[in-house]
């Protein structure tokens, strides 16, 4: 079977809570990761993001001054100097549907609601490593494809026109968060 070589992956963890950072570090090292960089606020995380060029970012949402949502928006700058494509996993105590949508619209790749579990975190990482989605750029969005169904019957807001993009069939971010898988 196929497995992830965690020892080749570089992680950036951003959480203002030292206890949560310790838990994340413990989990990632147990998975086999060697390179785990930590920041306690969004501004430091952004600096570390440019310096260390991590493969995967795991960030909390609620942090003072510069939060995880702003960090995601800063990373997803197509004209910026850094890599705008790195997977971002948002790990947060926020547990409302509205928050998942806001995170998705900021360019977050995966959403994981606390309380954290080893299984939930592993599955999010497995998904971003093995099944990356194409990126979409519109006049007001740049980030991973927000649509995980390629049905042509969608008639809601921000409907794309001008051709059909190839997109992957995956459960929506909200469905995945609800099921915990």
């Amino acid at each position, binding site marked *: 079977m196929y497995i992830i070589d965690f020892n*080749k*992956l570089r992680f950036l963890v951003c959480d203002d809570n030292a*206890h949560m950072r310790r838990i994340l570090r413990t989990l990632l090292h147990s998975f086999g990761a060697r390179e785990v960089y930590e920041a306690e606020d969004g501004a430091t995380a952004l600096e570390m993001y440019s310096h260390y060029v991590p493969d995967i970012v795991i960030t909390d949402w609620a942090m003072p001054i510069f939060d995880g949502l702003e960090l995601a928006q800063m990373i997803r700058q197509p004209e910026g100097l850094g890599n705008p494509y790195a997977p971002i996993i948002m790990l947060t105590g926020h547990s409302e549907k509205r928050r998942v949508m806001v995170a998705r619209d900021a360019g977050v790749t995966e959403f994981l609601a606390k309380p954290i579990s*080893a299984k939930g*975190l592993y599955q999010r990482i497995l998904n971003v490593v093995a099944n990356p989605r*194409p990126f979409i750029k519109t006049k007001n969005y740049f980030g991973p494809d927000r649509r995980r169904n390629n049905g042509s019957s969608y008639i809601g807001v921000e409907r794309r*026109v001008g051709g059909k993009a190839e997109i992957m069939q995956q459960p929506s971010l909200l469905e995945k968060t609800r099921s915990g898988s």
Partner: protein
Amino acid sequence: MARKQKAPDVTIDTFADHQVISQPNPLRKMVRYAEDHEIDDPVARAEQALAELSGEFTDWMQAECERLSTAYATIKRDGLNGENSMELFRAAHDIKGGGATFGYPTAAAAAESLCRIIEHAPDLSKVEELIMHHVNAIQAIVREQSRIDSVGMADQLSKRLRGVADEYLIHANRDRPEHLEAVLAPSIVPEG
């Protein structure tokens, strides 16, 4: 160790109002085939590591509780304002997020109720007593955690507080549809 930034090798398909940007999976090389005998379940390994860390959870939870108490004491001293209510929210939010992991699910539930009050009450000065009951309840639940007969009581206390808070928030937000929708929406956190 700093790493040199490589320009991503992307393909751009342009449509009328959007672009689809694809790149060869840069993390593909991190996935490899392994024989069954090589595989050591990483999730089980991580759960074991977390169990080994759990000896520290009581101290961590007490530290989180002290942070909540300090934030509340500041409010009592200075009166409610945007800054100190935000600090109380952050302290409660961290207990909500970490409490269950640290072995205090009922404290996490009471902290969630407190977060909802701070986020959705139209005027916090009108719910100071409700805030105080939540802070006291979280402290009591954490303090009495080790007493076997307190577990059911903690659960009842937490549910009762949530009931009172929800009743108030539904009534107070009856003319604020965005808040009302958020108050009534089910949690996305999987059960159990």
